[in-house]
């Protein structure tokens, strides 16, 4: 037994130096489904910057924010929710003006809620209005628990607001009908995908456009079609330097050059190849065929920002609860 413990301790010593604190090594805390994306980004970045190391941590982005607040030493964050970076601002880890530190509101790429339908689109689903038809079953996770589904909810609401001239009762009725068409609310995006793909439930799965591509790739491109509605909600993927950590570790330069890399043509190309829309005009033109035209509205324009959304829609007893509870 004693030898065993000694061996284990030696092994621990052998592993621990990997976590050595060095300014040539930074940790990127990212959301849960960006593993493959950042594996490619990091490979290219390191090839261009020899001797540097980028470590990756993945998890739900709210969980990641919480972990950083509790001491996870991430130098940069690449999240899928603006609100989660705002949590870091409140905790004093990220500076107030983080959105002006990088271009496009510090969002090097973006996506939108889009539809994944069965091959050949047998139900002829083209737009949000088709989702409330009686013969259509819709799959998306529970907006109470899934950030992904919150975007779906907000995009549908934005569409309804336009279609019904902001009439709150009609908007509410539209969303209620949409919810009625959902046979089962899973807790997360991955579970909803399983329901749609493996259990064969529903006619359309709503999730980020970037993810519809991943699903089609994984489960068979010939089995599904991607439908982009006429209008959708801009989903930003914000990035930020975690000031408190980089100041302590002296890694600000590397952190900055890493996030800057995401905006370079090389970085943008990798992002686009993985199904994300990018702003670089040359790269966007290169991938024009992949990304159908869509009119995007923003959270600020339609809802007046995330704080207002939280109060009006997602707070306990607010609109979402009312509609969801009435079912």
């Amino acid at each position: 037994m004693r030898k065993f413990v000694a061996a284990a301790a030696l092994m621990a010593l052998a592993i621990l130096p990997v976590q050595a604190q060095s300014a040539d090594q930074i940790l990127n805390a990212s959301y849960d489904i960006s593993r493959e994306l950042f594996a490619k980004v990091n490979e290219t970045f390191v090839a261009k910057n020899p001797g540097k190391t980028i470590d990756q941590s993945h998890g739900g982005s709210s969980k990641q924010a919480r972990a950083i607040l509790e001491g996870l030493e991430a130098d940069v964050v690449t999240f899928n929710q603006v609100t989660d970076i705002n949590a870091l601002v409140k905790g004093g880890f990220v500076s107030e003006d983080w959105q002006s530190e990088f271009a496009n509101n510090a969002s090097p790429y973006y996506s939108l809620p889009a539809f994944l339908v069965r091959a050949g689109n047998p139900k002829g689903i083209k737009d949000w209005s088709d989702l409330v038809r009686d013969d259509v079953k819709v799959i998306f996770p529970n907006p109470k628990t899934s950030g992904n589904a919150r975007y779906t909810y907000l995009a549908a609401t934005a569409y309804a607001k336009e279609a019904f001239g902001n009439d709150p009762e009609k908007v509410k009725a539209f969303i209620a009908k949409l919810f009625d068409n959902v046979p089962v609310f899973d807790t997360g995006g991955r579970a909803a995908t399983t329901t749609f793909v493996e259990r064969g439930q529903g006619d359309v799965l709503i999730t980020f456009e970037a993810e519809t591509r991943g699903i089609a790739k994984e489960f068979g491109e010939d089995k599904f079609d991607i439908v982009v509605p006429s209008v959708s909600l801009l989903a930003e993927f914000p990035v930020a330097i975690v000031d408190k950590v980089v100041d302590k570790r002296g890694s600000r330069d590397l952190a900055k050059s890493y996030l800057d890399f995401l905006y370079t043509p090389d970085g943008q190309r990798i992002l686009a190849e993985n199904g994300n829309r990018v702003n670089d005009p040359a790269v966007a033109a290169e991938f024009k065929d992949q990304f159908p035209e869509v009119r995007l509205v923003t959270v600020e324009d339609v809802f007046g920002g995330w704080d207002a959304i939280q109060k009006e829609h997602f707070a306990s007893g607010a609109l979402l609860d009312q509609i969801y509870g009435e079912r």
Partner: protein
Amino acid sequence: MAAARASTRPPRVGDSPSVRRALIGVVLVVGALFILAPLVVIFVQAFSQGFGVFAATLAHPDTRHAILLTVLTAALAVPVNTAFGIAAAWAITKFDFRGKRFLLVVIEVPFSVSPIVAGVAYLFVYGLQGLFGPALEAADVKILFALPGIVLASMFVTAPFVARELIPLMQAQGRDLEEAATSLGASGWRTFWSVTLPNIRWALLYGVVLCNARVMGEFGAVSVVSGNIRGQTNTLPLHIELLYHDYQTVGAFAAASVLTVLAVFTIVAKALLERQGAGRARRPSLAGPAAKPAGGKA
């Protein structure tokens, strides 16, 4: 003799062959559907794209590190919990003191508390927003989101396993032998090594095996404190979840198959130990007088 007994007594459930067969059949079908089938699916999925893809997934540095980290965590957590379990069982069964029942309850707490609660509790103790977080930060000691946190969380969840295996056995064995050894002049250590340990060794190994299985499979508590850094703090169960969420179905199932194989090894080891233990109990001469209480019971 059995037939005569059956005719004089009212029939019990299971006496009739049809009832017996129906019960056995139900257990077999339920077992196959709910336990065996999912396990088979793991392996079918893991090899669904051929052995090459399976091997490539396992050869990936992150997967290899996850396996290594899981084994390392077990290598650190299990010995500590073993020592703790023996000490706790020894104290509870061989001595009388105030608060003994309370100690028993405390030892069992991790059994009834959800692992996620354990993880969150560690956040509150060692996190930056927590009790000791700022002090640890100032001393530049990393507990959370590093190996120590993972080992601590695993240890918490599996703390009762060894003690729970030992306490009933040591209670049944009583303390006569230890008292005899002491009265003959043996020191505490000598009594433990020569009298107590030989008596409990199979139960102890059994507890260690269970503890090990649980440490390797622990997800909830570790998920909270690990920080999910790939190639650094991602244990095998966390790695499986990550791959699964990332639509790497084959990878996820390949990693899951490794964990399953580790678990199956554990079960086989446990079965072997049980046979060994039963054999020992039936041969009192091998274990000397120490085996008498157990032998008498069997």
